[in-house]
């Protein structure tokens, strides 16, 4: 079972190492991890997707809370939060395939952000499932390169995860 955890951490050197090290040392599996700024320059926000049952999740949360540089740990339930991932995909685009690629892009409300005689770069944003679906469809043309951000997530409504 996958769980999404949002962390507010101090924006200091070595914090990422402490968190990543905690996961490897205690045998927790990270599916994805993203870090980025918050509106307070002292803090960063991380979104971690971890695989495991409720016991694992509880241990992950408690162990993360013990780190001095971790300010807040919060599980984000999929039913109560919005989540997004961005991917840019360089796909082989022969002349005869171009229109079909563009149709797929249009159906997914994705964008073409670069075109060359033999390839295109497609940008897609959405849930992990949507990105996966897009990747599956583009695979038939030949994916030359792909970069994904990993998931970011936020609780719906007025509830906030902040320092």
């Amino acid at each position, binding site marked *: 079972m996958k769980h999404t955890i949002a962390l507010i*951490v*101090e924006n200091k*050197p*070595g914090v990422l*190492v*402490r968190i990543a*090290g905690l996961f490897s*040392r205690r045998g927790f599996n990270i599916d994805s991890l993203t870090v980025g700024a918050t509106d307070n320059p002292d803090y960063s926000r991380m979104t971690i997707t971890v695989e495991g049952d409720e*016991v694992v999740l*509880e*241990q992950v949360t*408690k*162990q993360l*809370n*013990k*780190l*001095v*540089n*971790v*300010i807040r740990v919060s599980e984000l339930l999929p039913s109560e939060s919005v989540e997004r991932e961005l991917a840019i995909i360089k796909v082989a685009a022969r002349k005869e395939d171009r229109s079909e690629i563009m149709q797929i892009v249009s159906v997914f409300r994705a964008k073409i952000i670069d075109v060359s005689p033999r390839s295109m770069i497609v940008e897609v944003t959405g849930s992990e499932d949507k990105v996966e679906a897009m990747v599956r469809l583009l695979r038939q043309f030949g994916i030359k390169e792909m970069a994904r951000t990993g998931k970011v997530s936020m609780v719906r409504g007025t509830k906030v995860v902040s*320092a």
Partner: protein
Amino acid sequence: MGKMSGAEAILECLKLEGVELIFGLPGGVLLPLYDAIYDSDIRHILVRHEQAAAHAADGYARATGRVGVCLATSGPGATNLVTGIATAYMDSVPLVAMTGQVPTNLIGKDAFQEADITGITIPVTKHSYLVRDAKDIPRVFREAFYIASTGRPGPVLIDLPRDVTVNELDFEYPEINLPGYSPNLKVHNLQIKRAATALMEAERPVIYVGGGVKYSDGHKELVELAEKIKAPVTTTLMGIGCFPEDHPLSLGMLGMHGTTYANYAIQEADLILAVGARFDDRVTGKIASFAPQARIVHVDVDPAEIGKNVRVDIPVVGDAKSALAELAKAVEPKSWGPWNDKVAGWKNDHPLFYAKGADSIKPQFVLETICKLCPEAVIVTEVGQNQMWAAQFFTHKHPKHFISSGGLGTMGYGFPAAIGAKMGCPEKEVFDIAGDGSFQMNIQELATAVINEVAVKVIVLNNGVLGMVRQWQDLFYEKRFSNTTLTRVPDFVKVAEAYGALGLRATKPSEVEGVLKEAIASDRATIVDIIISPDEKVSPMVPAGASLSEILELEG
């Protein structure tokens, strides 16, 4: 307070934190700091190996309850501390380890004697700092001592690049501001009420006590609670001394080499009140069959310990002392009942024992004799059979009087830790119960003990083998004694004399009491070489991976 160098600021911080003693060994990048130490009131004990500095600071901390401080230079000095830091981490010992570091402009360049010690020690520290600016020194030290000594204690490392110790700063000792660190000390009333109800409902309760009771000074409250509800009490290795072992409710230690009756009581209990203990595998045996009939109440200051190894029915997060005090208030007195009789029966039928009247010296007898001659002594141990005999055959009555590397099981810990304990408690008699294997791992500290006139008494239970591993080879590997025979151990009496210590020896049971009395009378570091058989075993024993019910009583 005005301008001062980083080095002066460090010493000012140590003074403000009440540090009277540090253990260390200098090196190139520490020259500015050692130059400042030259003029300082803080006593610096020069060790002969950095590992011993960490263990001595650890022993000092465990004996006094204060924060231990050690200091080592960059690179190899720092990496030599790692075993000592890991030892302190596993046993939750408040320790501040300072390391020198290459100048900030050389960090990451593989400079001479550079090691990424903050990176190396992340898994074995409660927190760590690499100080990049002299002006951060007061804040970092303030935080480090606070973090090391509060909540669940632990080691904190401060890495100090050379230029940071030279540069000047305006000294001001700041208030603590740690938004990500707030120990959960206050116990929740509702949880106390639920725990108290469970204790009242229980017919066969056992209180299982770990080092958390020692660190929170909760031993009086523990006795009060246990006596009020007539609950038997067993301790872990770390909890030894928190409950007097001559008390009728005492079960001694539980687990792999615990008493048969403690283990039986756990397996038969309908309620276990665990306080400041972490259900370590050496305690629980096979986890699936641990205390199969019991509801579990777990009190711990570290929420991550609750539910980590066993399922817990009633969690109580908070300080052990206040939890025990609140529980003692919340329960109604109970009288001695059938459960107490049953436990007393086990105690009577399955006492700790060994074969008496043998020609060779029995290590158990040595411990009993030490206990008879010096019942109030601080007992520090090495690791292995010596450690288990010291746990079993000395009647422990006071917290902070039994000092041993439990979690990490660090051979070589005992002697430097005993030096630290004795320096922290000079008025107490301090023994290091050693084996010849462990003692040789930090034997060089005889120099430290002799030069600083630290009168620790090292009792070497000399069997010429790595006894605990050999015991397992004997029992589970068809007596194939692969690499556990030390073949030839040095003459410890001569070693003692070479360092200027007193060396004594006993080879016959009749000599034991005499040499021990001589050692106790000695006012300097003393080694007592006691020759025992390599076939001596620690009994009883729960084989690894077996249930506590499968405890074996081995031939004495």
